[in-house]
């Protein structure tokens, strides 16, 4: 049954895409810049944080800004995705109760919507690289398979959190505080090597390794094997847990929302 859900979702990909697109259109309807507000606000934030933190950490701006831009854009994607996943199914209550749709479609819609947002924010990274004339080089290729892994993980997150949060209404605030904590303990705005001789601990943080497999190539380096092992292991665990959970509770989601 869960497999049928997946198959139906794939056959409805046009609906899924349109829903995601309309979500963005609807959010910015009537505004002058439209979705480019996303680009602008991310750009302003990266610029401001770049100045502050390069002073605080006493790093060369030229060095720090590309790092910060990529980190901020990727983390922004993840944080918003998690927050929206928590309301994924509860927000679609009306739709879930009035027509039969595969549940994965709601997840895929959220992922696509956030990928569209990400696409607008990537402009900031490109601009920073352009202004500083700091291009990653051929290593950037490695970011592509890593992004694909992100997409699969994203779908798993939306389904897992969406279902859990529909059932247990305490989970959204828990997820929010976990994400906030993760933001501080993960090298998002600070460089991994700043942690000094505790650096060996970092591969145990799945947030870090998943971030690093995309970020490092975009900065021109290929992450070490331990990063990949950690990122892939945590993805397999995430997807496995999600699949088993989804297969079990799929029939009950309609009662929970």
């Amino acid at each position, binding site marked *: 049954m869960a497999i049928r859900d997946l198959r139906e979702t794939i056959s409805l990909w046009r609906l899924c895409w349109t829903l995601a697109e309309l979500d963005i259109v609807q959010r910015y309807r009537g505004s002058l810049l439209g979705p480019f507000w996303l680009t602008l606000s991310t750009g302003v934030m990266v610029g401001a944080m770049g100045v502050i933190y390069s002073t605080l950490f006493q790093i060369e701006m030229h060095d720090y800004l590309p790092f910060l831009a990529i980190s901020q854009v990727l983390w922004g994607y993840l944080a918003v995705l998690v927050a929206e996943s928590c309301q994924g199914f509860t927000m679609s209550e009306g739709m879930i109760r009035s027509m039969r749709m595969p549940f994965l479609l709601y997840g895929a819609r959220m992922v696509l919507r956030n990928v569209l947002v990400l696409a607008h924010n990537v402009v900031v990274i490109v601009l920073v690289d352009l202004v500083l004339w700091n291009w990653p080089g051929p290593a950037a290729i490695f970011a592509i398979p890593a992004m694909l892994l992100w997409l699969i993980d994203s779908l798993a997150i939306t389904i897992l959190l969406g279902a859990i949060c529909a059932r247990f*209404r305490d989970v959204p605030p828990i997820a929010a505080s976990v994400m906030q904590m993760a933001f501080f303990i993960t090298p998002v705005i600070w460089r991994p090597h700043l942690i000094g001789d505790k650096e060996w601990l970092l591969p145990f943080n799945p947030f870090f390794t998943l971030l690093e497999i995309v970020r490092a190539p975009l900065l021109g380096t290929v992450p070490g094997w331990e990063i990949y092992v950690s990122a892939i292991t945590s993805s397999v665990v995430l997807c496995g847990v999600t699949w088993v959970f989804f297969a079990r509770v799929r029939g009950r989601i309609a009662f*929970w929302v």
Partner: protein
Amino acid sequence: MSGMGEHLPALIEATGVSLDFPLYHASGRSLKKTLMGSVTRRMGEDNRHRVVVQALRDISFRLEAGDRLGLIGSNGAGKTTLLRTLAGIYEPYTGSIRVQGSLNALLDPNLGMNPNLTGRENIMLRGLYSGLDGKEIEQLEVDVRRFAEMDEFINLPVRIYSAGMIIRLGFALATAIRPQVLLMDEWFLAGDANFMERARTRLEDMVRGAEILVLSTHNTDALLDWCNRLIWMEQGRIHRAGPTVEILEEYLGHRVQPKAQPAG
């Protein structure tokens, strides 16, 4: 409208369907309760403090092409739940339901319409959901627009529409896609009389075009006009089932005259 089901004759087969409707209170869903619950269970107490409504109990029937089933019973007898289960929205805990053929369920007045999107966008989504291609969606739009008398409103968000306009749009949209199996809930027969005049013709077309109809209503005329068999539900069970007039007379407690002329 689409899919492999189109070539097969329509069929609905329900076998021993039971469904419990869990009621979660605001506090009942918290993590704490569940954790506490598992603790008490370990201490040997029963963990049955969840409130469950036995929505459907051992429902079995079979409908083939040409069958028009009416569901009657008091409020809360499980009619709407049964329709939702047939539509695949709720899954039965025990028993099985087999539906063959394209299906359209008119259950909710807004049919999942998004109030922040324009009429046109909602029409497009509905078309995509039903698996229509670009050209068919255009036709759908023309058809819905004409029937619902939308004019320029089609490019405005649905939330600013008047109540009547929303009903017209919802109705036009729901009836534009002709299914093999049509499930219909009560509200579809309610509506302002003026609109109903026109709606009725369209609805009758659709009902007659469908191979199987399942209708839940208290409206005696509609039952007599459209249904050839009835299921009378009480407390989630099939209380009585049989030919329309016979069951209806028993249900109402007086004789009914089937009209020679269809109402409307």
